[in-house]
């Protein structure tokens, strides 16, 4: 594998493997990559509609323009592998088996959502033994924390001799956290079968990369951890697949951690409420016009695989139908019941007791008691 140094290669494989890993993908698989990107984008567009109808309870986070980085990288994993997504990796979660209806219910805080209304947006997962779980881990908000956790997940693979690999995403911004540093360093020392993907999308909330680090590029951090570093164009889904597949194979072969930098761009704000006032004029438009990952890949599909307009529009129809069905299903679900709040902080005791001032009251009443006695509620102000 290419080793990061002062002049790292912009991916393109290595001399040992002149054939791109993606050359081994079938036509169907290559079309599938487009399907996942399209599904990601359309599902987020549906979420925008629901958000505007105030059916989404909290904030809404978009990955517009980054679909290739999430989808292409996760596509390099096997089902038994474990992937730890961040807020902009909806695409990776879908590839790994999360369903649109789960995502919709989660955003709408439904009682039968994957976290039963306890956690927000795409903070949910499904991990455990290979085979019986889909292999994606629910993230928490404090940035960087998933890196040490994935160090532990992959350490367990190593200890048990399981043929499984882990993949964890980290934003350009979150590379500044202590947790990232401690986690990747420990994993590197332990040669855990882990791929760490730095998604360099130019911004952390409003903070541009040059205020986040003085490094010329994130792949330069690999050498400081004594691991290989690879870099790719994050908006070229096949390049993303290639570079991740290399890193996954490296991990699976027992050679340890790789840091992969994917260069992409966050076209929407940090969350839906962010007006991106801090972005230089024209920047977003330029990326949209010249570097949209779906547009770019459509050209590849058409020109190199002879995919027809009919095939594409059938696929678009399928995506729309799936999302419509999922929306119908999600809307039919109700909110959680208040008393479910008490269940499962510990395995033992399995539930907390209601506090004394609740015991004699009708617990269900609390579901409707909105805390709006004072002041006014302005939804636009409270979706940070």
């Amino acid at each position: 594998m290419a080793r990061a140094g002062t002049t790292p290669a912009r991916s393109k494989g290595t001399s040992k493997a002149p054939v791109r890993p993606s050359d081994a993908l079938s036509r169907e698989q290559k079309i599938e990559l487009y399907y996942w990107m399209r599904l990601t984008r359309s599902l987020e567009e549906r979420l925008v509609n629901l958000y505007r109808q105030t059916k989404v309870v909290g904030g809404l986070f978009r990955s517009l323009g980054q679909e290739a980085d999430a989808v292409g990288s996760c596509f390099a994993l096997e089902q038994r592998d474990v992937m730890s997504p961040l807020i902009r990796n909806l695409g990776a979660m879908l590839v790994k088996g999360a369903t649109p209806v789960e995502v919709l219910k989660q955003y709408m805080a439904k009682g039968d959502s994957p976290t039963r209304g306890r956690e927000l947006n795409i903070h949910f997962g499904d991990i455990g033994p290979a085979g019986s779980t889909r292999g994606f881990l629910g993230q928490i908000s404090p940035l960087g924390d998933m890196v040490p956790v994935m160090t532990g997940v992959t350490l367990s693979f190593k200890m048990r001799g399981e043929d499984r690999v882990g993949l964890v995403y980290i934003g350009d911004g979150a590379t500044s956290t202590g947790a990232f540093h401690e986690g990747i360093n420990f994993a590197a020392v332990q040669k855990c079968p882990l791929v760490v993907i730095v998604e360099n999308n130019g911004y952390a909330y409003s903070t541009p990369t040059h205020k986040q680090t003085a490094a010329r590029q994130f792949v330069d951090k690999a050498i400081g951890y004594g691991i290989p570093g690879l870099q790719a164009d994050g908006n070229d889904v096949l390049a993303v697949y290639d570079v991740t597949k290399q890193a996954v194979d490296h991990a699976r072969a027992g050679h340890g951690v790789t840091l992969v930098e994917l260069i992409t761009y966050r076209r929407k704000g940090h969350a839906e409420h962010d007006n991106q006032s801090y972005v230089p004029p024209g920047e977003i438009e330029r990326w949209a016009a010249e570097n949209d990952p779906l547009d770019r890949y459509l050209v590849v599909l058409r020109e190199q695989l002879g995919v027809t307009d009919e095939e594409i529009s059938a696929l678009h129809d399928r995506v729309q139908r799936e999302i419509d069905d999922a929306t119908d299903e999600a809307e039919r679900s109700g909110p959680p019941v208040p008393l479910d709040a008490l269940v499962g902080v510990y395995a033992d005791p399995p539930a907390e007791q209601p506090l004394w001032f609740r015991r004699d009251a009708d617990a269900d009443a609390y579901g409707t008691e909105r805390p709006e006695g004072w002041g006014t509620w302005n939804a636009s102000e409270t979706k940070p």
Partner: protein
Amino acid sequence: MSAASTVSAATGEITYLEAIREALFEEMARDPNVFCLGEDIGAFGGAFKVTEGLLARFGEQRVIDSPISEIALVGAAAGAAHMGMRPVVEMQFIDFLANAYDMLTNYVATARYRAFLPCPMVVRGPSGGYVRGGPFHSQNPEAGFLHTPGLKIVYPATAADAKGLMKAAIRDDDCVLFFEHKYLYRRVKDVMPDGDHVVPLGKARVAREGSDVSIVTYASTVWKSLEAAEQLAAEGISVEVLDLRTLAPMDDEAIFRTVKKTNRLLVVHEDTRTGGIAGEITARVSETCFEWLDAPVLRVTAADIPLPYAPPLEDYVLPQTSDIVRAVRRLAAY
């Protein structure tokens, strides 16, 4: 300070959030050693826009956008504070104080005692729930710091206090953790007192006078307690509400005064129950006012649960006005 806030032409009121911003403007204008640092506080004006306008007024040297590094933010503030600066650090959400727990409790809190180093700094940020923020954007982690000698803790309930306490916190010679309740940011307002409005740290405020039962509380639940007091007045129960404003140092005298007046105490906070600040208050009252107590000290708090996101769950876990009403009734009838 017109840049800092949008005073309502009709009432002259500004919000809790604007009051904090005004305090930052005034203190930065007054003292060149005051500077701000945090994530996205500059061009963007902060996730909640508390620091909006500061960059334009005071420039990049004094309004520093940082990497996502809470340890570094707190540590760097301490180092600058040692050298005579007065840093004000924003946590994008106060929940992320947890990431700097070592730096705050081990380095900052002990600096004066072990090394005679001044550490005048403020660490501030949006706190608290009732906003559907889920488990990591709704916390009230004050109890985790009350335990550490060397830190001061402020948690205002009103807009006027938010301004006056922020100014006092910035001028204080020790580290002050300044909790800003995000539900109150834009929901409560006050006309700011004229002139250099400084509210001294460590002094509680009687938010409502009463004679039958005392409620000691702070931040969001001051308002819920006042609401409850209003309802209870209709039943003929007269409730006194004490707003602590500063949690460390705690205004023991004010607490004991109201307990000795009404002989019945309810402690209310939004934070979880076990290990929360209500326990400490109960212990102090028990030690000092045992003879005056006509009823057990009771607590209305959140349940011991990571705060869930869905409205029915969040509402169930957090204390509500009706809980306070019920608890006061019980005390009054004791």
